[in-house]
């Protein structure tokens, strides 16, 4: 392993990796404990400790092994599962059902999610109103905090948000790892533009109807969070759409293609993040001098962000979510984390460390509260 790491420009030892992990340990401790650790309750103490050590062990292993994607995916998948578990258990406790009623809409009690953001822009610009029945400030998952979080993340990480911050991406990321071999191998590159078509349609429909149409009619993750109470043909059709899209794009296609098909072909926020990818400082670079054009990176890319054309041109596409799967797969270490303006093939180690610190800190802070909550709920269920 040492020679592999040396080739990658990462001469890491246990001590060095621990040193890199120290700032993460301190910051996550502050966030998880809130500065005042309270060990009075056993289940919350246990949940906190498991989360704290789990998160930091993953970060340490990223440095120690030089691999990124495997450890990122663990936290990413756990985050997605925890969020759904916490949301569902909260709703079952509060409403005794996963569905919400018209009264919940009127009282603005619907938790906000970042996927609504693309639909809010046009109505907010033209009517100065927010077309989502949620709380603007205060309460669980309020609009202001989610918008600010997403805005910061997308400006810093670009589409990296889709692999390091989104609390839904872990679902199809997880299912895309179920099989070792792909059943469906060839998919036209044109489909990569589908999220832009979805973004176009939902932005226009939301602006015309002043309703978040994506959440109302399309979002596959309604199947694992909450959805409108089925009271008539229309709401039954909506539930059918949510379940079909979840089954098709989040479970079946990721298993058959080993790709994140929901993120690649549907998510409108992914389209916006692809645009912000052009201004973010972090990127994935291809070192043409070391590249043997084996196309292993193209093969493993979960978001169709790499094509053989991109490899020949020495530049990754704007669809890249910086998950690190291609970096881990490249035996020549020709593809690496980089910073814009820095020539490819140089400062590989520094760029990776800097990117990992920023992106991992985001997902660690963003996910730890949810993971702790779900662990506590789980302990309550078990004991």
């Amino acid at each position, binding site marked *: 392993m040492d020679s592999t790491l040396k080739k990658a420009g990462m001469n890491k030892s246990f001590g060095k990796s621990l040193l890199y992990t120290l700032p993460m340990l301190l910051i996550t401790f502050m966030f998880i404990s809130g500065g005042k650790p309270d060990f009075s309750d056993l289940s919350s103490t246990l949940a906190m400790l498991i989360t704290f050590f789990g998160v930091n062990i993953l970060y340490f292993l990223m440095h120690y092994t030089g691999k990124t994607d495997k450890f990122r995916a663990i936290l990413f998948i756990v985050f997605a599962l925890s969020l759904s578990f916490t949301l569902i258990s909260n709703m079952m406790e509060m409403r005794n059902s996963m569905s919400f009623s018209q009264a919940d809409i009127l009282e603005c009690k619907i938790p906000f999610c970042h996927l609504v953001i693309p639909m809010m822009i046009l109505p907010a610009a033209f009517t100065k109103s927010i077309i989502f029945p949620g709380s603007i400030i205060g309460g669980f998952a309020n609009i202001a905090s989610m918008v600010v979080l997403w805005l910061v993340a997308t400006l810093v990480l670009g589409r990296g948000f889709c692999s390091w911050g989104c609390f839904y991406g872990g679902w199809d990321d997880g299912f895309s790892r179920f099989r070792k071999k792909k059943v469906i191998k060839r998919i036209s590159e*044109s489909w990569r*533009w589908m999220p*832009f078509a*979805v973004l*176009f349609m939902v932005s226009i429909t939301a602006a*015309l109807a002043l309703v978040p149409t994506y959440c109302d*009619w399309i979002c596959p993750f309604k199947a694992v969070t909450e959805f409108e109470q089925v009271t008539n*043909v229309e709401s039954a*059709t909506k539930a059918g759409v949510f379940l079909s899209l979840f089954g098709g794009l989040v479970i079946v296609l990721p298993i058959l293609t080993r790709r994140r098909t929901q993120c690649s072909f549907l998510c409108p926020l992914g389209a916006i993040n692809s645009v912000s990818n052009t201004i973010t400082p972090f990127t994935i670079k291809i070192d043409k001098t070391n590249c043997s054009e084996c196309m292993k990176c193209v093969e493993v890319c979960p978001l169709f962000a790499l094509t053989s054309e991109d490899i020949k041109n020495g530049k990754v596409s704007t669809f890249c979510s910086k998950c690190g799967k291609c970096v881990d797969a490249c035996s020549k270490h020709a593809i690496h984390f980089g910073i814009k303006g820095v020539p490819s093939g140089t400062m590989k180690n520094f760029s990776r460390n800097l990117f990992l610190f920023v992106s991992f800190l985001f997902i660690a802070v963003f996910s730890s509260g949810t993971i702790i909550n779900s662990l506590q709920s789980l302990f309550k269920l078990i004991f």
Partner: protein
Amino acid sequence: MAESFILGLSSGSACLVTCGMVMFPYLMAGSAGVKKIVSDVGVFLLTRLLVYFAIATLIWYFGQKFLSSQVIRTWVSGILYIVFAVMLIWYSLRRNQSKECPAGILASVENARIIPVVLGVVNSLGLCPALLIMLTKSSTEDTLVKSWLAFLSFFAGSSLWFFPLPLAGRIRKKEIIRTVGILATGLAGIIFIIKGLTILIGGIING
């Protein structure tokens, strides 16, 4: 109205990028600057609007005459929505491979002055699935005014794409716009399949 506008907007994007490049040389032929192009595009759009109003009136009349029963109206419109929406998806996928446009027949028109008018008629009468969906919608409207409004919204949505036509030569990344337009047309098809299914299921449940 919103539905018709969206249908026009989504199908118009693909229509412009595949057909616009065929129509553009005709609209530009013999023109002396932007003023002439703008006036030609204006005539072209006005012709489309007039043809749409005529179609809306006719189809509404036929709808009132032949689809008077609510049961027939539900079944016919539900099935037609699904059939035409499937056609719209097929049409968008097929257009991805071939670049056919009815405006090609303009090669036989010799009088350059009437070209924008002929182009307007050809473009609005081209029986594309989006127009067939509009015909289904208009035929089941309660009043003639609603039928006109539906076509007016469809016209507004699709016409938005024709305004940048004089700048077509300067638009970069046409291939991406075309791809997104084609995919958006396919999505519009899916929306109308769901609408058709909702109408049919609602009809079955309510007898």
